[in-house]
Structure formats: C-alpha cells, structure tokens
C-alpha cells in the first residue's frame, strides 16, 4: 500500500490492532463519558426507590449480621480477637468490591452490546466505568466500616490502627485491577461462548470461601497446614489481611504475600488487556 506523502490520516481502520495499544489518548478524550457513566450508574441505582442511597448500607449490614449469626455464633469460628461484625465487614467490603468488578466486567460486552454495536468509543471506558462505579459503592461501605470501628473503639475494644493503613490506596488498586483483569479475560470468551458466564455466577460466591472473609488466615494455617497454601496464594487474601492489620491491628500481614499479590495482579491485568484488545474490535459480530 503506497501512501502519498502529503496525506496525513487521523484514523486508520485496519483488521487487527496492536495488542498492547491501549488507546490512552483516545480514552483520555472520552474522560467526560467515563464520569457521566459513573454518574448514570449511581443515579439510576436509586431512582424510584424510597430509601435511595441508603441501600448501599443495608446490603453489607444484613450480610454481616447473617455471617455473625452463622459463622461466629453457630459455627464458632474465631475472629483473631477482633469483634466479629468488624472482622466480617472488613472482609466483605473488599470481597464485594472484587466480586462486583469481576462479575460486571465479565459480561460487559454482552450487557452493552446495544450501545457498542451502534457507536464507537474507546471500549476500555466501559470496564473502567464499572470499576469506578463500584468504587463509589465501596467508598460508601468503607464509611460504614469506619463508623463501626469508631463504635467498637468507643466501647473499649482493643483496636490499634498502625502505619500499615497507609497501604490502603495500594490495596484498592490491587483489588480493582484484579477484578478488572480477570473480568476482561472472561468477557472476551463470553462474547462467543456463554459457558463461562455460568461458571462466574456460581463460582464467584464459592470463591469467597477460599479467601479470608469469614475466618482469619492464622486459623486456617493452624487447622489445615497442608491446604492453607490455596488460601495464601489467593491474591485477595493478602489484601484483606493487610486491611485488617492496618486498621484493626490484628491479622497476618507479610510484605512477601503482598508483593506476591501485586505481581499476580499485574500479570492478570496485562493478560486481560491483551485479550480485551483483541476481542473489542469484532465482538459485535459474535456477541
């Protein structure tokens, strides 16, 4: 293909694109869309409800009440001397953020086929908007966590936040990137074969038991020394443990485990991006 020198094209549409080209410039141009999508998700969530944004609180409160009843009272699982509701809430908000990012991202092509089939915008905007919308939810639930923390601290429980809580932003990034990366990997496959979507729907809630949402890592290590590696090597575990350690002063925090989590996350995110890039160009034909 010969190109005349005086011709200077802005857009070139070719069958395949560079796998690692993220269209950063293009995506940046659409940043307003990202914010508007987040706003849309947030506003449409509580339109025509009476309680409105209060629903963001109700879900985790009921969850920890049930966990408290079943796992702490009935099953008697120890919670590292942390008040059980606080222990569960720390795990639940992290896990929910991860699970929401993962499940929503994994069906992003299917759910938005109508829009994506009709108009171009950098496809990465949609998964990013999912991560950001869920971040808003996470923030609201985190406030709930802080309130509960204050409550127990006021009642004289031994809650000792330490410097490890400065790692909090990193923890958020890890969880978001992990959910995003895994979700993008799955989304690519589900455009054509829906099988994996079923696996996600029943698999993600089950996966929660392989990480330390309802039990502390220390208990798992002492009870099942042979199998605790499954829990340790779940990259979410390090995040939950670090959060508990930083804010509540209890938990198994280790730099090694956190570094491992980071490494895995970067790896998964890269693979996810490559797969997503490959699929986004033609998914319209197969979805």
């Amino acid at each position: 293909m010969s190109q005349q020198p005086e011709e200077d094209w802005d857009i070139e549409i070719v069958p395949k694109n560079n796998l690692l080209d993220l269209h950063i410039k293009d995506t940046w141009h659409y940043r307003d869309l990202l914010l508007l999508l987040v706003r849309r998700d947030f506003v449409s969530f509580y339109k025509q409800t009476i309680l409105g944004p209060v629903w963001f609180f109700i879900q985790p409160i009921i969850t920890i009440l049930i966990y408290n009843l079943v796992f702490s009272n009935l099953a008697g699982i120890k919670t590292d001397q942390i008040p059980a509701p606080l222990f569960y809430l720390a795990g639940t908000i992290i896990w929910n953020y991860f699970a929401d990012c993962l499940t929503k991202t994994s069906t992003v092509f299917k759910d938005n086929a109508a829009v994506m089939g009709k108009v171009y915008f950098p496809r990465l905007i949609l998964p990013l908007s999912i991560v950001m919308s869920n971040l808003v939810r996470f923030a609201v639930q985190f406030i709930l966590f802080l309130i509960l923390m204050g409550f127990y601290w006021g009642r004289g429980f031994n809650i000792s936040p330490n410097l490890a809580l400065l790692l909090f932003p990193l923890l958020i990034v890890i969880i978001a990137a992990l959910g995003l990366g895994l979700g993008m990997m799955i989304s690519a496959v589900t455009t054509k074969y829906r099988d994996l979507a079923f696996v996600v729907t029943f698999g993600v809630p089950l996966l929660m038991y392989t990480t330390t949402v309802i039990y502390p890592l220390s208990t798992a290590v002492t009870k099942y020394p042979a199998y605790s590696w499954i829990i340790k090597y779940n990259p979410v575990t390090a995040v939950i443990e670090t959060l508990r350690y930083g804010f509540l002063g209890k938990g198994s925090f280790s730099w090694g485990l956190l570094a491992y989590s980071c490494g895995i996350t970067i790896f998964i995110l890269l693979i996810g991006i490559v797969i997503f890039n490959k699929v986004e160009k033609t998914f319209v034909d197969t979805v």
Partner: protein
Amino acid sequence: MAKVIKVENLSKAYQLGDFGTGTISRDLERFWARMRGKEDPYLKIGEENDRTCKGGSDVVWSLKGLDFDVERGDAVGIIGRNGAGKSTLLKILSRVTSPTLGTVRIKGRIASLLEVGTGFHPELTGRENIFLNGAILGMRKAEIKRKFEEIVNFAGVERYVDTPVKRYSSGMYVRLAFAVAAHLESEILVVDEVLAVGDADFQKKCLGKMGEVTKDEGRTILFVSHNMASINQLCNTCLLLHNGKLEDMGETRKVVDHYLMSDYASTAHVVFDNDQKRRTGNQKVIFTKAWLNKPGDANYTRVFSLGQSLHLSFSLQFNNPNLETARTSVEVKTADGLRIANMIDTDSGFEVRGGGGNLKTYQIIMEDLRLYPGTYYLSLYAGDTSSTEIYDYLEDCISFEIIDGGILTNRALPRNAGLIYFTPTWEIKDESK
C-alpha cells in the same frame, strides 16, 4: 479537493448460523492455521452474499474488495438492496466493527448516527441524557454545554428537559436524539436510515440540517437510505452496493437510475413447480411461470417507481384438453396482507382460453402505478367460470417494489401516510357567482 476518506480493498466476512458446540473445534482449527502462519481455512471458501440461494459454505462476504475515496464536503448516498452491505460498511466506517481485510483511512473526527438515542437511559432526564448521549458520541462536556440551548430548541422539548425520557412520546425521544447528533462538531457524519422514524415535518428538518452541514460548514456526510427522494435531494455522489460489491459510484442521478433499472432477474422471474409453497387447486390448468418487466425493456425487474408501468406476464398450461376457458385473475396485496385489488380477465373484457393443451402466455399491463412506496405481492388464480372449482391458485408468488423518486414526485412519501397516490385536480372555486 482533499480526500477525507480512502477505502482500500475493504472486505468483511461473516459466519452464518449459530455459535455452539460445533464452532469451537473450528475456532481451534483456525487458531492452529494462524499459528503455522497459514491463511484462515474458512475464509478461503467464503461466498458472495446472495441470500436467495443456499450456499455450500456458512461464511459469506458481506463486503468484498471495496475501493473508493470520498472528498471533503461531499454528501455521499449509499444505496442498494437489503443485504447489499450498506450497514456493514457504515459499521466499519464508524469503527463499531473491524474489517476482515483492507484498510480505511480517515481525516478528522468521525461521528456516526446508526441509531437514534444510543445509550439513552430511560430513568435519566432529558438534560442528563443530552450530556450522556453527547459524551457517547464523542463530545466534551464543555462542548455540550455550549450547544445545550441549541439542541433543546432544535428538538423542541424545552418543557420536558427535566423529565425522565421514559415519559417522552416516541416522537420527542427521536427528536431529542437526533438533535444531539446533529450538533456534533465532527468533520464526517455517518447516518444510517434513522430518519424513517419521526413525522414528515421532522424528516424535512433533519434533511435540511444535514444539507446545511455539508453546504455551509463543508463537512462530509455518508448517508444510507432506501428513500431515493431523500438521496436525490441531499447527496451529490452516490455509491451502489450489490451483494457486498461496489457496483457503481458517481453522480447521484445516474447511480440512482442504475439502481432502479438493475436487473433483479432472480426474483422478478419465477418458474413454478409442484413444490411451490401456498399452491392449491386441482391442477386442471396450471401456471408454469411468471415474470415482471417494464414496457420497452425485456429485462426482468421487480423495482418500479411511482407512476411507471408494470408488465406482468404468465404462462398457462391447460392440462385437460376438454377445458376451453379458465376464469383467471391477479390479486394485489400489501406487505401486511391487505388485499387491494383483484383483477379478473373478464372485467377487462378479455377471456383466457385454452389452446388444446398448448402453453400460452398472457400479459397484464398495469399503467401508471399509483401505489405508495413499499412491497406488494401478487397472487395468480385460475378457476372455472362459476367460481366453484379452483384449478390453480398461487398465493403471493411474485412481488414487486415501489420506490420513491419517480417521474411524478420528488417528495419523500412516508409509507404509513397512504396507499394510493391520487393527484386530483385542484382549483380555486369562485363563490361570488
């Protein structure tokens, strides 16, 4: 003039049929071929996209080897039958999907309007949706803010701006959606047949807006429509696609004429056999074939413009030598199945007679077709003179198309605005006498 779009060898293959357990083995085979650096085995056997015949492969080329350039300020109409590849072309140009082969190079921003109201959220208000939709189409927030008043005025929804769009009438919804897209500041605008919705007044307004955009602002428009009147009115050049290939490109008038005169022999000439669907009767007399053409043109065609003459020819075989006559008639139905005419031979002072077992061909000449644009179906009937016995009845066995933009009118005729195009005599009545 400067080129703003350059299309080279553009092709797009689609896989027909369902995706299921069968497709994964094929995907693996493809993957394996690619790994060894070979050509995709399933693309090699791809076929031309002709829907009417069943092909041997389930890969079809929806577009095949398109080459063309578009210059700045052009309004390009894209025409062709259903399935010719028009929408696929627009989808590739608006970057919704990628081509299988070939490249497109574009200068400047491109905005597409393949559907009105893409991304509208029913729960959000008109104001919120203007911002959301504008952003989806690629506008910055500041840009939308600047044009907000103009958009709302164009759509005429001032009063409803803070009401959720789910409470809008469908007309208001469409107007608002078009208004957002029309105010995009892109160098190239790609528009699919979205104007089919909305009332005649609004259609005119949209066409006016698009015309204004090309003439005054020097922007380029690509416009797909089945409405030849709008194409004639708006576009200076035209692309004709046929089965995924570029059949003609050039001055609009010429290309539109080419399209209207095209030979659609495959369906304008029908041979009837015993497997013919919706055939009833005792076969004492049978229809063997039928075809449509225009006066003075031997080529078969099933596309007529308003005011043209239609010739329907059919051959009759009298299987029973004792039979002398058959009451023969032709029914006309709309696409909705509404019977609009039943033309019997004797009503026209003619009698269809058998010729001792020979095949005879008859012709019906319908002059000056005054039907609104759309598809019409013809049924052929032969029975005995007392209408008690059906010899042969072929329901909806051949169809024809009436399109806008003929000799009678340049006006776009909305399909739901009427059925028959009357042009009565109009005069001033002097009441002083």
